């Protein structure tokens, strides 16, 4: 597979939204590298432990827990590089996670009340939810129909930054529960770590 072969982006997006980050990352890795670890521009990777176990030369930089699963941070400078199809896939993955976070917010805010009224119906909350969705829509509009290579690495990096901002807007609406490591806030955190490993440029 070359870096310009398309991946099943719709499935990756849906998997991220409904089954979560680890399932979607496994799916993403199953594509271009047949289960082998893909590394970012400076030779970093963040992969589920079962994928990391096949790596023998990489340095482990630590682990991060996510809802009972574990992801391993790896560094292998010899494998540094960018893969257009994969990075676009990661954009769809993080977009799907962001969609899942939006659904969680709507459900959470619809179930909580202030002075007897659902939080979701407060104008302030509606406006912030809308702002986050506008952010998501901007990203979606750019990546819909894009084929690997249509968007260069810097462009994809910017889209990832926008997804992070959308996630942060949504997390704020969850108050303290968005900061719990056993809730959606941890998934958003690991999503940011994925963007960190696979986007941007290698430091000079």
């Amino acid at each position, binding site marked *: 597979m070359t870096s310009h072969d398309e991946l099943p982006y719709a499935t990756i997006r849906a998997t991220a939204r409904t089954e979560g980050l680890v399932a979607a990352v496994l799916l993403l890795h199953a594509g271009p590298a047949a289960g082998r670890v893909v590394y970012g521009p400076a030779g970093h990777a963040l992969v589920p432990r079962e994928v990391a176990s096949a790596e023998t030369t990489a340095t482990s930089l630590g682990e991060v827990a996510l809802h009972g699963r574990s992801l391993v941070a790896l*560094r292998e400078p010899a494998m540094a590089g960018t893969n257009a199809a994969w990075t676009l896939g990661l954009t769809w993955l993080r977009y799907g996670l962001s969609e899942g976070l939006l659904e969680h917010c709507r459900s959470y805010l619809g179930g*909580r*009340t*202030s002075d007897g009224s659902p939080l979701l119906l407060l104008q302030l909350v509606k406006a912030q939810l809308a702002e986050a969705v506008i952010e998501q829509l901007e990203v979606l509009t750019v990546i819909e129909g894009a084929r690997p290579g249509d968007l260069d690495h810097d462009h994809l990096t910017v889209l990832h930054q926008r997804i992070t901002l959308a996630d942060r807007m949504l997390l*704020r609406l969850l108050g303290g529960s968005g*900061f719990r490591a056993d809730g959606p806030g941890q998934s958003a955190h690991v999503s940011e770590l994925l963007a*960190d490993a696979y986007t941007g440029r290698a430091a*000079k």
Partner: protein
Amino acid sequence: MIELNERQSVLRAHVREWAQELAKWALDLERTPDMVHELLDLPGIRFLARNPIPEEYDDEPITLDGHPFRGGGVERVTICEEFGAADAGMLLAAPGPSMSGVLVSQLGDKAQQELFFGRIAERPTWTFFALTEPERGSDAGAMQTTLTQKGDRLLLNGAKRFIGNAIRADLGVIFARVRPGPLGVAAVLADTGHPGFVATPIPTVGLCGNQVTDVRFSSVEIPADRLLGAHLSPSRRGLLGAVRGLNQLRPGVAALGVGIARGACDYVRAHRRALTAWEHAELDGIGLRIEGVRQLVLRAAVASDNDDPGLGPLASAAKSRAAGLAEEVTLKSLGFFGAGARQEHPLLDKFVRDARGIEYMEGTRNIHHLNVFQGISQGKIVRQ
């Protein structure tokens, strides 16, 4: 511009040195929050453990370079910014009067203050402050934890959420409902050793040193004389007392946010070799932005020290802006290190995670925006 005076500058210099020393254990504390017990003899923790204690309960006042320090708004924000720039988690993990101290000072009678501050002065004592409840977040008016009279005792039943340090604490202030209505909420000074008090840690994305907890009270018996503010009018105790106390504390939380932003910025300057001219300009711009929010925080702190009626909305403005600043600057700081920054720079990653925690401490941005609007409509701020 608001400048620190000589006395406040002395405090800043000492706290900066102490906080930077403690920052060596920042990542260890994250992994093992209990390790704060091993740091109790270090000057930064010893300072926090005793700051502030009112003059009448303290035989050994804190004196630095000949200046006494007794607490107050500007002192608090100075301390908080320095710890925020080093490790906010360490400040939140430390023993000391913290939020409860403000409430006990405001609402406690002489015996209650002697009990509380006597224990603080005697040995390192962790305290907690329990207002937020599960499912109700910032909606304190919907509080369901109850305090009922049983002879000469009070029975406490209910639950609180996101309560920092409750698992380490000996003492704390708990808000509970004694009857329906807005004036039906009271504060009580409770020992954690009473049967029926159970605190369970909640894992968090950042600020792990704080060890926030879920706390459950199952018929916890509390002596009736621990009810705070019984000697005050109903309008000065309970929730209104909490609001007054939180208004005083909020600039400190805002200063933590400013500190986190500054810490991330300092980290970039210390660890990025050979910045480009554009990067220098970018960092200088960030520095100016931090200074602007610092000024806002100091303005709120001065209002706190002056009993300014505009304190509430000013503190909210500072907190709201500082929470945003911390998130914005920490995310931007990653860009100076390129791909893989969060893996290669765990302390910077910690600043990024900790920044998210400032948002939910002491009320989220929405609550503060509403407070600011109230301040505008009531003519408490931006008045000629």
